[in-house]
């Protein structure tokens, strides 16, 4: 016994699209961007193999040596190899940014969805708390907290993650609100489902595209915040290599027409643009899916 033939499904095409064909639909810009991100990741993972010298190794008697056959990008103010520092910097800068974003997303989205599902005073307390934190400019707040707690890498990660999670909270609460209003949430409540199921199985899959897109953006912001903090001297401390501090160290040279500082700056810019290109494509797809529904 089957459905009435008059009552046919709208799509006669394949029932599910594979991941491969999803990648194949990516525009050229997104594909190039993905290749660039992959290259960054490989550099970060295999930094000790790729770098010609150590991270903090003083290899030259001459600070700010110009590029030559031995030091492809020249040396910095202490006579360390710029290229090696750039390669190790990928590891530190990206690793810290990734850790920060992961923590801020886990925290922010869980609390955001919980606030949307439970509503009432839980929502009020969480939202007003977030409002208060967001009222203070993020960079200044981070500077204050870092000077209180001391500028170590774990402190840096936790403080930026906490401040960033307020933004994630706002976004995930807003998108979850739209899903909570749907009747399938009511149906789940009528089944007596717990909070964990409602968050994980009913809401999260529906807001995932937005969250992933937001993740890409937040990753860039975390990256830029760390660079900015390093530039101000409260970020990653020497001798650890990181692109933000490398820009700061070379910044005094700009008056003399030396363009060394542009090398780490370009590394930051290229990664940021690449991540955004991928995010844009993903957002396009996600909104397209929503329209199609």
């Amino acid at each position, binding site marked *: *016994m*089957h*459905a*009435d033939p*008059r*009552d*046919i*499904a*709208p*799509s006669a*095409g394949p*029932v*599910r699209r594979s991941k491969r064909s999803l990648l194949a639909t990516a525009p050229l810009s997104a594909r190039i961007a993905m290749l660039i991100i992959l290259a960054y990741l490989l550099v970060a993972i295999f930094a000790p193999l790729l770098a010609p010298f150590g991270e903090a190794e003083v290899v030259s008697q001459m600070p700010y040596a110009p590029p030559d056959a031995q030091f492809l990008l020249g040396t910095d103010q202490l006579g360390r190899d710029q290229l090696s520092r750039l390669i190790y910097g990928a590891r530190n800068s990206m690793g810290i940014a990734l850790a920060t974003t992961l923590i801020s997303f886990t925290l922010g989205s869980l609390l955001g969805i919980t606030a949307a599902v439970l509503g009432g005073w839980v929502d009020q307390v969480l939202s007003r708390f977030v409002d208060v934190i967001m009222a203070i400019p993020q960079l200044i707040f981070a500077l204050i907290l870092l000077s209180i707690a001391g500028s170590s890498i774990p402190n840096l990660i936790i403080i930026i993650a906490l401040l960033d999670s307020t933004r994630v909270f706002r976004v995930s609460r807003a998108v979850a609100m739209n899903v909570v209003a*749907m*009747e*399938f949430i*009511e*149906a789940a*409540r*009528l*089944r*007596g*489902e717990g909070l964990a199921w409602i968050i994980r*199985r*009913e809401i999260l*899959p*529906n807001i995932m595209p937005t969250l992933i897109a937001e993740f890409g953006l937040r990753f860039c912001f975390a990256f830029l915040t760390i660079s900015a903090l390093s530039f101000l001297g409260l970020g990653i401390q020497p001798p650890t290599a990181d692109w933000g501090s490398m820009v700061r160290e070379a910044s005094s040279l700009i008056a003399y027409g030396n363009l060394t500082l542009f090398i780490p700056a370009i590394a930051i810019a290229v990664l940021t643009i690449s991540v955004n290109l991928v995010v844009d494509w993903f957002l396009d797809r996600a909104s397209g899916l929503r329209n*199609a*529904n």
Partner: protein
Amino acid sequence: MQTDNAHLLDIRDLRVEGESDGQWSTLVDGVSLTLRRGEVLGLVGESGAGKSTLGLAALGYVRPGCRITGGQVIFDGRDLLSLPEDQRRPLRGHRISYVAQSAAASFNPAHSLMNQTIETAVQRHLMPATEARNAATQQFRRLSLPHPDSIGKRYPHQVSGGQLQRIMTAMAMHCGPDLIVFDEPTTALDVTTQVEVLASIREAVEARGTAAIYITHDLAVVAQMAHRIMVLRHGKLVEEGETQAMLDAPQQDYTRSLWAVREVQKTTLQAAEKPLLTIQGLNFSYGKAGPKALEGIDLTVPRGRTLAVVGESGSGKSTLGRVIAGLNVADSGQVTFDGQVLPRRIGQRDKDLMRRIQLVHQSADTALNPRHTVRELIARPLETFHRLRGSERERRVQELLEMIELGPRYADRLPSELSGGQKQRVNIARGLAAGPDLMICDEVTSALDQLVQEGILRMLLNLQAELQISYFFITHDISTVRAIADGIVVMHHGRIVEAGPRQDVLSPPHHPYTELLLGSAPQMRTDWLTDLLASRAASASAP
């Protein structure tokens, strides 16, 4: 200028294609139609038949993502498809206009109704603003809108849905078009409101001698409005003819099946002795000081029978369903379920009570999580209520899919890969999976085409005979009630105005409101609306 008998609109062999997922499929497949001046043509078909696409093509327009691949649309001697866009645009809104299905979604909420009504005329310099305003007021009066002189100052949210639909008609008629395309203008309205809108549209169209294309899936409605009817299916013409001839003697099987939809009738069963659900003196209001949404409700749902709750929107019928489900908490009164007093909140009920009362929502689009497959949707109640796992659960999923007349191959589909009727079946299957004694069906067939409705109603009847489920069936549609109910409760403004076995409620004498509701349901004869208006006018003028 052409003579009066000449064709105003002549669509020849029109082909339209639409794109989805990079593939082009045919929406309108070589349809031809002609329309004389002052003639009303009804376009009938299920959703997806290409009615709206054809209607829009009469304006020389296709929706984004569609393209015209062949044919001609000749309006008053000119082929709209070969005209450049800047010569087509002045015709739209002036010579040809369009009335959309959802007036609420089509008005701009930030502008007054008057400004939106006269916008076309003023923008195109067809008449000065004062004159346009006077003409619009005339139209409002002709469409029997209340306070025609001042209603234009209001904003869309300040008038009712029926009034908004009439204002959109006034807007369409404002520039004195030769042709109006009505795209399901009354589908979203209650039957009682529908009568008023139909009457005023028909009057206005007749008075000005405007030609019209009237698109609908409701045959009884089109019978009142159209001189001729065209039946479409899968983008092709099935049958065409004069309205009376089409109603009396349809030639094609498909047309006959459309006509036969309203013939589902439940056989009368013996009254059941034991009540499953009893409600006594129930009151409910939204908020402490809010107006009463339910007042003094008393009713009984017998075991294995169907109680239909009928009323227009705002009558409190859905609220009542939600009170039983435990989603709304009653202010006072008692609900007894199978001998025990039902806790008011869903949170206070134990798992078994949750299982025994299931609510099936109206819209499967929002009631099914779009990211879950059919299997996941149906399996979850099996897990939570029956602790079924693995192969046992899978077997039950297959059984349920058979029960709702879908094959096992549908188990891996997402809701977006199902048709509207199939989605609603899955929605019902999720309720069935719990193994309920009482199923609250909240307008489960209202958003569906009549043929699909019929299929689902038959399925529900079969399931009831097989599983002895009681249905608390909320609907505004009288023909659905005829098809499925054992007992009927008529609700109006939160109160029960009439209740009893189906035969008693549907046969006279009626409570005045039941009379109004029954009378407003369109009937399949061409003079129904005329008769109804005449009898209402007669009773209104009687002392």
